[in-house]
């Protein structure tokens, strides 16, 4: 059973290796070299975030391969990647960043480490290295201001928009902002920079709406949350915005909530720690938990379905997921969309700098990324992602894009979408103002001159 399971994997590996070398040898000898564009993959496949890492980066890798197989690359440019294990450890991720920075004669175009601490660890370097930091829905929030952070992108939405959207959802449930006065909302967060990231926005809204905000930290790994939830019970909280990381913390939060009898449908999970894995860890008690999504799960989307068909169906064995049943899960789909962004950005870059069919460099890629535009329905349909992510476009000034989400409910086996349409902050302008103020403050402190943006 187990033993031969390993064996089988092992053998398939070796076999594949041999096959690959063979083909590699042939291809080099046979045809003239196809132009390549290289992407780094800073994955985390071991350690506490292994479930997330395998899902996200499985999705990324699958899409890159899919584009090669299905379309022969981007305008004939083959997509290749190098992977490096960060273990979600800032120090190791910096090593990975440096290691993957150059591959042969090509420099890497972007960095997408999928962890706020990891994004912070390199945010000071990307500009000088001409590398795009694509912190898709994580990382430093005020980097959404393109005037201060030309090289950092936070599509499709950042943490401040996310908390604002949650509060917006809550006030609608409660029946209006005026009903929010005197309500108690607990922000239960992992005790790290990432956990505190949304607080500036949340405090502001709490002040404006007059609800009572209680911040309760959980020390990682958070396998024991008795005292936190007892405080929540004591505070007679109406809602809990849970801002954790890792299935262990999520699962414990849910079971402990159940132990003190806190209704799960009053808990709203963060995107980062809000996937099937986190709900499964919570077991039966997880039913009714709310989770925010910026990319929708499921296989009903043509793209995901096609990827499954091309890479997995009838043992094609080209997929990167160790467990194929995870195709279509939250993390997987988010990974795919991240890669869609890479590829679309590359496509744009080739067009803008008329290098169609040729590799591009960091600066050109940055322009391409800034030109990401998902507002055209036809294009979304073409990509097979229509409805999977909000329609949005990036601009010189706005590196966030949509700032909208869907609310989902865990029905015990899968997520069901409860919001009719993509939903954002009740007052997006206010959030945007906060972001730009914070960014400008940073710019002043580090005497950065703002890039003047037409739009």
């Amino acid at each position, binding site marked *: *059973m*187990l033993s031969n*399971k*390993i064996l089988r994997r092992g053998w398939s590996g070796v076999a594949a290796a041999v096959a690959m070398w063979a083909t590699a040898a042939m291809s080099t000898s046979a045809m003239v070299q196809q132009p390549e564009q290289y992407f780094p993959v800073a994955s985390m*496949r*071991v*350690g*506490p975030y*292994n*479930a997330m*890492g*395998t899902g996200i980066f499985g999705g990324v890798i699958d899409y890159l391969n899919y584009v090669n197989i299905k379309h022969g690359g981007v305008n004939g440019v083959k997509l290749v990647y190098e992977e490096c294990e960060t273990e979600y450890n800032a120090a190791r991720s910096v090593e990975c960043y440096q290691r993957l920075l150059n591959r042969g004669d090509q420099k890497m175009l972007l960095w997408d480490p999928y962890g706020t601490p990891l994004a912070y660890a390199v945010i000071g370097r990307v500009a000088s290295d001409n590398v795009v930091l694509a912190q898709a829905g994580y990382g430093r929030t005020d980097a959404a201001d393109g005037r201060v952070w030309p090289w950092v992108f936070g599509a499709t939405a950042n943490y401040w928009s996310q908390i604002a959207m949650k509060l917006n959802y809550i006030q609608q449930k409660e029946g209006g902002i005026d009903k929010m006065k005197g309500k108690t909302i607990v922000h239960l967060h992992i*005790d790290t920079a990432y956990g505190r990231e949304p607080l500036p926005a949340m405090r502001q809204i709490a002040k404006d709406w007059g609800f009572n905000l209680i*911040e*309760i*930290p*959980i*020390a990682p*790994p*958070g*396998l*024991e949350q*008795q*005292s*936190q939830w*007892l*405080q929540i*019970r*004591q505070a007679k909280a109406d809602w809990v915005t849970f801002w954790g990381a*890792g*299935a*262990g*913390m*999520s*699962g*414990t939060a849910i*079971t*402990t909530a*159940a*132990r*003190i*009898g806190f209704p799960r449908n009053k808990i709203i999970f963060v995107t980062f720690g809000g996937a099937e*894995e*986190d709900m*499964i*860890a*919570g*077991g*039966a*008690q997880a039913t009714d938990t709310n989770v925010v999504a910026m990319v929708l799960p499921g296989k009903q989307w043509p793209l995901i379905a096609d990827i499954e068909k091309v890479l997995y169906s009838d043992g094609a064995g080209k997929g990167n997921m*160790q*467990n194929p049943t*995870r195709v279509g899960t939250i993390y997987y789909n988010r990974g795919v969309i991240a890669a869609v962004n890479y590829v679309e950005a590359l496509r744009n870059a080739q067009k803008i700098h008329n290098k169609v069919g040729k590799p591009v460099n960091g600066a050109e890629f940055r322009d391409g990324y800034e030109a990401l535009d998902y507002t055209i329905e036809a294009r979304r349909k073409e990509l097979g992602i229509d409805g999977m992510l909000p329609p949005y476009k990036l601009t010189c000034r706005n590196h966030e894009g949509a700032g909208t989400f869907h609310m989902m409910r865990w029905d015990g086996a899968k997520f069901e979408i409860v919001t009719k349409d993509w939903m954002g902050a009740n007052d997006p302008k206010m959030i945007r103002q906060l972001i730009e103020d914070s960014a400008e403050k940073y710019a002043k402190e580090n005497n950065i001159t703002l890039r003047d943006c037409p739009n």
Partner: protein
Amino acid sequence: MFDISFFIEVLVGGLLSGIMYSLVALGFVLIYKASSVFNFAQGSMVFFAVLTFVGVMEKGLPFWAALPVAVGVMVLVGMATERFVLRPLVSQSEDTLLMATIGLSFVIEGVAQLVWGVDVRNLDLGIRDEPIGWVLDSTGMLISQLDITAGIVASVMVASLALLFSRTKVGRGLRAVADDHTAALSIGIPLKQIWMLVWATAGVVALVAGMLWGARSGVQFALVWVALKALPVLIIGGFTSVPGVIVAGLLVGASEKIVEVYIGPKFGGGVEVWFPYVLAVLFLLVRPEGLFGERIIRRV
């Protein structure tokens, strides 16, 4: 004003958590008693044990069939550890052995992820983990069936281990071993067998702890860190004392919750990360050998 009923809630909640800590700490004591090894891999063993158990169930085995399988695997792990890690390192310093077990934890964690993959699993023991209605109504206390189970399991394990140490021949052997390896050997105590037995037992203890923790936190990697919660319990209880572990567990659980709830907020919370350790240090300053630990004699 001071809300006494809430205080009791916190206290009870703390004691219940304390039991969960003790469950993990038991494994440490068991091994330290026998081979004066501070087995840092205990946390990884907890993770591996329950992961194996769930994994086997996924393969279609029923609960009661999966249990012996998991036990068997843990026994093998224990024996392998004794054979390939401890035996070659016998007569090395305690620090070296500690290092070795940290190395071991890497191996176990790696193997766990290699064999069972990285999927998060949930373990349903069929024990409801929600406040029991009538208890809540009558006493206002939040106690779940799982809490009660944990309590029972803990006391059963402690009782049986206590018996193992005091009554059985092996147990007496153990004590001799703990006192002096060579002497134990010279009077013909089968050291290897005893160590194997102990490590196997520790594996089983890990499985039990893992099942309860897994039921609560999901069966996923972070379980390896339950050990961190057990360490202060250990030093307060004394590395060599089974009852000490329970008392210390309750002490740590209760005190850390009370501190977190009543003092934590003044500092923005998260006090319970370090409080148990500081408590342990203060404690050791008074009793360097822990609550029930055997006295450390300074010979001249």
